[in-house]
């Protein structure tokens, strides 16, 4: 009996690596600490009532952001482990299996569990406030989306210590990801972790499209929407076309692995190429999905901090929409070297290059928004300024990669690695950081310390160039991606060393941001105005942090940059338009179902991973029961009485 338990445990838990034992201890200690703190301060009820069951878009947004920053930490540690291995290629700091697991999880985590949720966090916090709405269109669905993401991400992450991580690369090409080459459970964790959170992403896409189209404040025309709202709309449209492809692709891969189907195996009439086409039909639009909102963020910030109206609004909208359209015609550039023939390659080369045009136009429009403005370099603007050169260079190397015959030399090399990190860090990470600094006061009611923020900014930026510029040269010198070892005689050692130093500089930059947040919580500068940056859009017209109902009375919109115009009118001595009398506010009720249902999905997913039907079936039954219970729940909303609105407003405005 004892023997069989021991044998089971050694298969169930990942063993044999000191790094993983360290992680085991770390995870156990953190869990104990969390349980202790919650119990000691009697916070369990508070956690459940105020957060886990909340359908308030602002709280969901904050939870998204916390989770994604934790994932940024984990993905970052993965990156530094890889870079450490590459400075000492002769030493097995990480053995090849472990290295493969780490780059696989690094990719998946950074794109799907860091960039996506950070983006969703910003959508959640900003969009309803920016369009003058009281919530998103489907608050319950919104909470469900978050918890599906969260439990999907957890399922993916436990593979690190239980069962073993996937190691077939972040897009899991067959046959490497098939049972024949990945017999362990790692690949099943990959499928179920992404599948569960992917459903959440798709629902968020639908939710925000409806929110933006149907919930705008009275008077706000489409062409008066703030640019971040536009970018969210274009990103969500791309999501609803791209994510179903991912869902189906992973479902087919699951059928291959679980039921012995042959969709992607050569024997039995399948074809791995089918997978590669499908995964990139999702995968390439995906990078535009994450970068489009960053464009919106920059547009908001550039206008605000240059104290000038955004230049070329219509161009910007057109550019956003054409990028999301063309993003679906570029997928084959990921396999130019597959011998599809000159005409096919030329077609996809040109459709890829075309995207550079609207993207370039956006950069010019930002520059001309700054032109003849008055630019103040607060944190959000600083990150925007860091973004422009970084993204322009990254975009240019992207154009180089799109030149099909030249791509035969760049493909799969470090040149490619350098390029996509440049657009994803320079574009997406810097963009979302800018957004976080910009809307932080709106979320929490205090600003972040500027001095520590500047340190973080410069460490990240300098670290970025030190890390990734050498990789372009490594690529041109024949170094391929995903190698864990190379001979010293290749002469790649020095550049790899420089690159690793840059990676660690970015890591220190991240620590400065953690310090900055901790420091600012302790010595916070309270923002009592609700409008600390002299903003232009509606979210700055309400107190910070926003009350649960956002707007006591829904604003009447007459122009683009409504809040800015309003401030101008007030300055000129116009009286604010008379407010209609307060009315009770209709709000959605909190619900524990999204959390429980997603947890059931986690249990079902875990069961499928280990092929334990005794666990998967009750998990799925739990999901079904949750749906049933919800469909018979009639008490889903309530009204905030006028008195309470008055009291809240007085308390919030009283401190102005």
């Amino acid at each position, binding site marked *: 009996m004892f023997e069989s338990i021991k044998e089971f445990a050694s298969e169930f838990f990942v063993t044999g690596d000191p790094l993983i034992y360290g992680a085991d201890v770390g995870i156990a200690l953190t869990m104990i600490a969390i349980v202790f703190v919650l119990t000691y301060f009697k916070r369990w009820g508070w956690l459940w009532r105020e957060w886990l069951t909340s359908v308030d878009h602002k709280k969901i947004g904050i939870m998204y952001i916390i989770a994604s920053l934790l994932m940024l930490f984990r993905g970052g540690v993965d990156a530094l482990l890889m870079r450490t291995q590459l400075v000492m290629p002769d030493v097995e700091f990480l053995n090849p299996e472990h290295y493969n697991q780490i780059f696989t999880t690094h990719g998946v985590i950074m794109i799907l569990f860091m960039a996506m949720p950070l983006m969703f966090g910003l959508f959640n916090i900003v969009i309803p406030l920016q369009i003058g709405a009281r919530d998103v269109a489907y608050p319950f669905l919104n909470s469900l989306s978050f918890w599906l993401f969260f439990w999907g991400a957890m399922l993916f992450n436990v593979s690190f210590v239980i069962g073993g991580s996937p190691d077939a690369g972040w897009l899991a090409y067959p046959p490497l990801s098939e049972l024949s080459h990945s017999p362990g459970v790692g690949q099943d964790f990959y499928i179920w972790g992404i599948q569960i959170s992917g459903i959440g992403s798709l629902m968020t896409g639908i939710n925000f499209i409806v929110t933006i189209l149907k919930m705008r404040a009275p008077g706000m025309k489409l062409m008066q929407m703030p640019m971040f709202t536009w970018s969210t709309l274009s990103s969500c449209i791309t999501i609803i076309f791209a994510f179903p492809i991912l869902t189906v692709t992973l479902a087919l891969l699951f059928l291959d692995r679980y039921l012995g189907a042959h969709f992607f195996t050569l024997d039995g009439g399948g074809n791995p190429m089918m997978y590669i086409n499908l995964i990139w039909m999702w995968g390439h639009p995906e990078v535009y999905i994450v970068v489009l909102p960053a464009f919106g963020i920059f547009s908001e910030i550039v206008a605000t901090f240059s104290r000038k109206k955004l230049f*070329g609004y219509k161009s910007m909208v057109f550019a956003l929409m054409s990028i999301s359209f063309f993003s679906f015609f570029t997928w084959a550039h990921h396999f130019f070297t*597959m011998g599809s023939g000159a005409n096919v390659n030329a077609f996809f080369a040109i459709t890829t290059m075309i995207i550079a045009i609207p993207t370039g136009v956006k950069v010019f429009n930002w520059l001309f928004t700054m032109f003849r*403005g008055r630019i103040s370099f607060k944190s959000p603007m600083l990150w925007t300024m860091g973004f422009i050169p970084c993204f322009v260079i990254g975009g240019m190397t992207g154009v180089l990669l799109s030149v099909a015959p030249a791509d035969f030399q760049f493909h799969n090399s470090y040149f490619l690695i350098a390029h996509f990190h440049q657009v994803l860090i320079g574009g997406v990470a810097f963009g979302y950081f800018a957004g976080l600094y910009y809307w932080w006061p709106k979320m929490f009611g205090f600003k972040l310390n500027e001095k520590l923020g500047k340190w973080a900014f410069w460490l990240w930026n300098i670290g970025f160039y030190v890390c990734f510029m050498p990789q372009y040269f490594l690529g041109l010198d024949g170094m391929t991606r*995903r190698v864990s070892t190379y001979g010293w005689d290749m002469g790649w050692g020095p550049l790899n060393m420089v690159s690793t130093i840059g990676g660690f500089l970015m890591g220190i930059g991240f620590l400065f941001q953690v310090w900055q947040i901790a420091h600012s919580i302790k010595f916070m500068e309270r923002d009592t105005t609700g409008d600390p940056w002299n903003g232009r859009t509606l979210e700055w017209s309400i107190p910070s942090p926003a009350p649960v109902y956002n707007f006591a009375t829904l604003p009447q919109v007459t122009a683009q940059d409504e809040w800015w115009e309003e401030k101008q009118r007030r300055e000129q001595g116009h009286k604010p338009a008379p407010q209609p009398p307060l009315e009770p506010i209709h709000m959605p009720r909190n619900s524990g179902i999204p959390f429980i249902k997603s947890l059931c999905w986690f249990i079902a997913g875990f069961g499928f991973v280990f092929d334990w039907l005794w666990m998967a079936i009750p998990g799925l039954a739990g999901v079904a029961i949750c749906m049933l219970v919800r469909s018979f729940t009639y008490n889903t909303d309530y009204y905030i009485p006028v008195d309470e609105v008055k009291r809240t407003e007085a308390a919030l405005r009283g401190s102005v």
Partner: protein
Amino acid sequence: MPTAWKRLSALLTLVLTMVLLSGCSDPLMVLDPKGPIAAQQRDLILISSLLCAVILVPVLIMTFVIAWRYRDKPGNKSKYTPKWEHSTKLEAIWWGIPIVIIGILAVITVQYTHATEPSKPLESEKETMVIQVTSLDWKWLFQYPEQDIATVNYLQFPADVPIRFELTSDAPMNSFWIPQLGGQMYTMSGMAMKLHLLADEPGSFFGSGANFTGRDFGKMNFEAKATTQEEFDAWVKQIKSDSPPLTLDGYEKLAEPGVTQEQSFSSFPEGLFNKTVNKYASSHHHGEKESSAQEPEGADKKAEETDSGAGGHDSHDENHAGH
């Protein structure tokens, strides 16, 4: 766009290239081509970099100038026009210039795409030589059908002779890449891809598998050595005399996952490459029609007929003779 910008960007690119070529002790492989395909790709890389620089350099300069000139400091006398938000002329310029540049780049790309299409035979007075490449876990098997020898993780061929590499895989998809001779090409099971390369001069070049295939994929490097015809013939002769033959059993053992040293074989089972390509063909329900054996010459004609890379499917049918 003023010519000054162009001159500046040309100069910058030139300086950058010089730094790249001289700064390191060895020049970067891709920028140091030893064959016509790689040379065209290098040229294309430089031309497209230059075209991109036409936009990149002014944008970088503008960014710094604008940020400096219009910064918010007391007494900044530069113009401030908070409501200026549109200028058709300006927007036409920056929609126009990228469109023109991408247009030029597109034309160049289409030309080069056809010129360097890997399945297209290279023009040369000498006859094309065939080398069949199979990627295995985690090693490369090279078969020389005309010489009837085979090697593992080592490649030798005469300089100045056009080579047609026929590529397949008996393991997960890999990518065959000798940067100094030309760009890479995927090796895929069930297909035979073609990649035409040529070395201008004798020399030893670095080759590797570029696409991730699992545990020891990082060790799938090989030396590609171009020699004179005489040296090549001598080398073949030597292998013929002192290496063991590769048997079917031997191949099965070789194909098992694992790393190995360089090896050579004085012969290999007939039709081994085609057999590898057609390993899964029995489970395909298309392309089952039988055709006569078309070894190098026949396949070559086929490749000339279609300049598309559908070579995979063509040889799919041709190679049925291997059964």
